[in-house]
């Protein structure tokens, strides 16, 4: 029984952390290019409803993911036009996108509220998923969970091991220098923003097609905002984003297991519910408390509008 418990906690932790990882990594790349897009919550919502609608009509969850991604790209394109081309304030544009996205998703989603979607079978990796304890958590998951792991490696590799990644970071550190040596700052920032939007859309798709296979208004329930803060607390490091996301998911699941164990422990439920937030912030602040590293990792031009000809 004990082993089974731990196994279910691990499994649920990985599932709960997955949308956070995907969305946060997208935002991380966006922010590394010096753009602060606060629209994740709205983008996720629109991605979720688009994915649900397509998965429902075609019966194909994979097409649902693509639709979520597409919707996310469109949403971030709106942000790009406002913040990059028209050079509006990034914070205001992002907040507007969040509010707009949540409302828009509710509007599009009306006809889908009464629809139930069949849950998708996980992808089992032969033999490996039978490993006790870790098997189900690591090798009996939805495709997007494996995708999130690939994404962590890919983003880390891209940012720190490729020339394009170096250029992107240069744009985020000093857009003026990057511009003066001939890099298209606005173009690169657009690419980063669209990538972030695509990931937020996929995160939304994970919510509505795989995690809780349904669509209801407000189902993203603040996960976009959690992903945004994860990026900051993880000091823009992909591996730390993963630690933070799993820590958050793990604490949420663990406190539920404590509550559901039937053992009388006199800890207020409100405190237990707040624990995931508190623990994540605390741990990430502790591991990234070195001021030098924070300054090194945080993109210097974050949130600043870039005028190409200034």
């Amino acid at each position, binding site marked *: 029984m004990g082993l*089974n*418990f731990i196994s*279910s906690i691990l499994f*649920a932790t990985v599932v*709960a952390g997955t949308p956070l990882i995907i969305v946060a990594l997208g935002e991380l790349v966006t922010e590394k290019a010096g753009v602060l897009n606060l629209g994740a919550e709205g983008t996720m919502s629109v991605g979720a409803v688009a994915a649900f609608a397509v998965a429902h009509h075609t019966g194909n969850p994979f097409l649902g993911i693509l639709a979520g991604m597409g919707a996310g790209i469109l949403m971030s394109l709106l942000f790009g036009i406002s913040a990059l081309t028209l050079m509006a304030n990034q914070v205001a544009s992002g907040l507007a996108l969040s509010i707009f996205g949540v409302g828009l998703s*509710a509007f599009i989603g009306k006809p889908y*509220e*009464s629809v*139930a979607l069949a*849950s998708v079978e996980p992808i089992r990796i032969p033999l490996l998923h039978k490993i006790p304890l870790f098997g189900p958590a690591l090798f009996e998951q939805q495709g997007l969970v494996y995708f999130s792991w690939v994404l962590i490696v890919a983003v880390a590799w891209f940012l720190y091991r490729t020339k394009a990644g170096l250029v992107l970071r240069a744009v985020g550190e000093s857009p003026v220098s990057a511009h003066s040596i001939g890099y298209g700052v606005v173009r690169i920032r657009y690419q980063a923003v669209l990538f972030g939007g695509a990931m937020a859309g996929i995160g939304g798709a994970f*919510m509505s097609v795989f*995690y*809780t*296979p*349904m669509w*209801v*208004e*407000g*189902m993203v*329930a*603040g*996960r976009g905002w959690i992903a945004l803060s994860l990026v900051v607390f993880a000091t823009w490091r992909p591996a730390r984003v993963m630690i933070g996301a799993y820590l958050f998911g793990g604490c*949420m*699941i663990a406190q*539920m*297991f404590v*509550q*559901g*164990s*039937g*053992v*009388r*422990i*006199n*800890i*207020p*439920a*409100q405190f*237990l*519910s707040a624990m995931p937030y508190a623990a994540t912030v605390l741990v990430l602040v502790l591991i990234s408390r070195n001021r030098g590293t924070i300054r090194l990792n945080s993109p210097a031009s974050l949130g600043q509008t870039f005028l190409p000809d200034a």
Partner: protein
Amino acid sequence: MKTRNLALATLAGAVLCSTALTAAEPVKVGFIYVSPVGDAGWTYQHDLGRKQMEAAMKGAVTTKFIENVPEGADAERIIRQMAQDGNQIIFTTSFGYMNPTEKVSKTFPNVTFFHATGYKSGANMGIYNARFYEGRYLNGVIAGKMSKTNVAGYVAAFPIPEVVMGINAFARGMKSVNPKAEVRVIWVNSWFDPGKEREAAMTLIAQGADMITHHTDSTAVVQAAEEKHKEKGTWAFSYHSDMSKYGPTAQLSGTTHVWGEFYIRTIKEVLDKKWKGTNVWGGMKEGMIQLAPMSKSVPADLQKQIVKLEGEIKTGKLHPFAGPVVDQAGKERVAKGTNMSDSDMNSMNYYVQGVASAFPKN
């Protein structure tokens, strides 16, 4: 020129006024909802009631609703707006609208207000609520009879008396037929977060609960039970609405709110000028609480027993909180031979015997 215009305007105003006073046209009835109408849940049931009432009183009333109104300062503005727009009867359907409704009701003495689930009333403000614990008790009886693990899981929103009452009623129902029964509670501290509700349900299922129910607003819990039904034999009880669409196999029954009849009756009273204040707490007898249809997985003799118990609740022979009511610590809260009073039920801040979890102290 100017004076003539003014005279015309006054005349037009007078004409408008008098037509309004002859009241040949339908009376406007407004509803304020806390969440989107959606397809299931608390607000959905109120909206079903509104539609039923509108259909039954065609020609006499027109209705309008505003959904997704946050509790708090915004609510007051919207309730006031509704009164200003000429709505004669206004229903505000969430606990947090209590103070704003009371405030606005004082400035519009000719409008009649009704507030759901609160405790403040006035000369032109009635209150109404439903005794859903009666349905919960019967759900508990089914759970107690059918559980193989003797463990039921309860996904709950906030530790307020209304929610605690439901948990206790369920536990008492379960315990009445199964002495080994225990109810485990997970608080998610949110009325609506499908992801969290689902995780809580999955956690309870993983820890051995084969009966699952919820006091939250989405269908996620019933869906989770449906997903695990084949593997773990999990059953579910829906709340607010019948959610059998989301748990065609797993849902055994549920507790459903029915507001339509109440709305028809109350509005007729107001229109006939017979209204003298409302303080309705209606249950199965009044038809305001119904059992969601029992699925065919509930054995026939158990179905019969439930129908019989339902009849006894309606006649008042059976009360879910009939003494002795003993709390977790073993303290007797209601003595044998008496029923718990309404006010005691409405301030319940302890678990009864049969609930395994610790009560979340504030």
